[in-house]
């Protein structure tokens, strides 16, 4: 049993409705090799699709107060999503039944705040090119994997 996780982060500022700019930060394909890789265009399409689906799922809710899709369970993978208060969405694709992904996403959010948003050279809504962020992200995912599996 192993964690197979790869981070895929589309960043969309929902306050700005006129310019839909999707920012992608792709990190570490662990264990899947090249099979799961997507090129940038496809990543952008997937991210936009995911954002629209969030909105549609809110409309179809039978009760009030629906905020986001938290978990999508498919046949071969699970997708956990976390939305910050500003509408930035982080989602992680992992193996079926992996637990504690919500905690991981919150940690990644903290990393994003510390290494990306507080970076004076980072422009909002642009692709993330912060080395420190990348390093810390890889370390976090590795640590998470070790903690859950002991290897």
């Amino acid at each position, binding site marked *: 049993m192993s964690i*197979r996780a790869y981070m895929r982060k589309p960043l969309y500022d929902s306050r700005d409705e006129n310019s839909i700019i999707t920012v992608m930060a792709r990190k570490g394909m662990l264990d899947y090799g090249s099979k799961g890789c997507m090129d940038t265009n496809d990543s952008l399409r997937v991210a936009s699709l995911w954002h629209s689906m969030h909105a549609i799922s809110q409309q179809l809710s039978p009760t009030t107060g629906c905020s986001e899709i938290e978990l999508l*369970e498919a046949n071969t993978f699970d997708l956990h999503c976390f939305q910050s208060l500003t509408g930035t969405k982080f989602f992680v694709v992992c193996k079926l039944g992996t637990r504690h992904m919500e905690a991981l996403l919150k940690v990644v959010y903290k990393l994003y705040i510390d290494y990306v948003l507080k970076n004076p050279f980072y422009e909002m809504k642009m692709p993330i090119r912060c080395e420190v962020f990348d390093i810390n992200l890889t370390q976090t995912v590795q640590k998470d994997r070790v903690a859950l599996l002991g290897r």
Partner: protein
Amino acid sequence: SYISDPRQTIYIIEKGNAVLWGSEISPSPPVPTATGNNAHMMYVFNRNGVCLLYREWNRPLHTLNPQQDHKLMFGLLFSLKSLTAKMDPTNAEKGNLGIPQLPGQGCSFHSFRTNTYKLSFMETPSGIKFILVTNPRTGDLRETLKYIYNLYVEYVAKNPLYTPGTLIRCELFNTALDQYVRSIA
């Protein structure tokens, strides 16, 4: 009134419904663990996007009119299936996003959960899609949907008075469905 045919199966036709006499529904339903209505609503679509059935048990909020609601639901499922097929990390051969997938082709999702509801989805090989919307704490409903599919087969598909592709108006199916949904956790 009844009609018996040489194969010794008897159809009972009553109030516009025909039921196969003595048929058994398999798989057997999961053991009911809770009483009361936990399900919000249910949709059944065919492969062309026609909404064959919409049952509502508990829906305080109606955002759109029924036609728009059905179209939106079908569109959401189509897009989600397309997304999961594309995002599948175990499959190297992937078509472009948005290509219609045949039932069973590519990785498909079986449920998603938001903070207010959980949507469970099942597509049969013939393209009939069953959607059940329940409260978010519900467990895995795949067996439940399989049982509902069997109810559909027995009460609707085998009904000689039902035309495929049209709205389901089988009272016995509705009753059986209501009764069963009331018993799921």
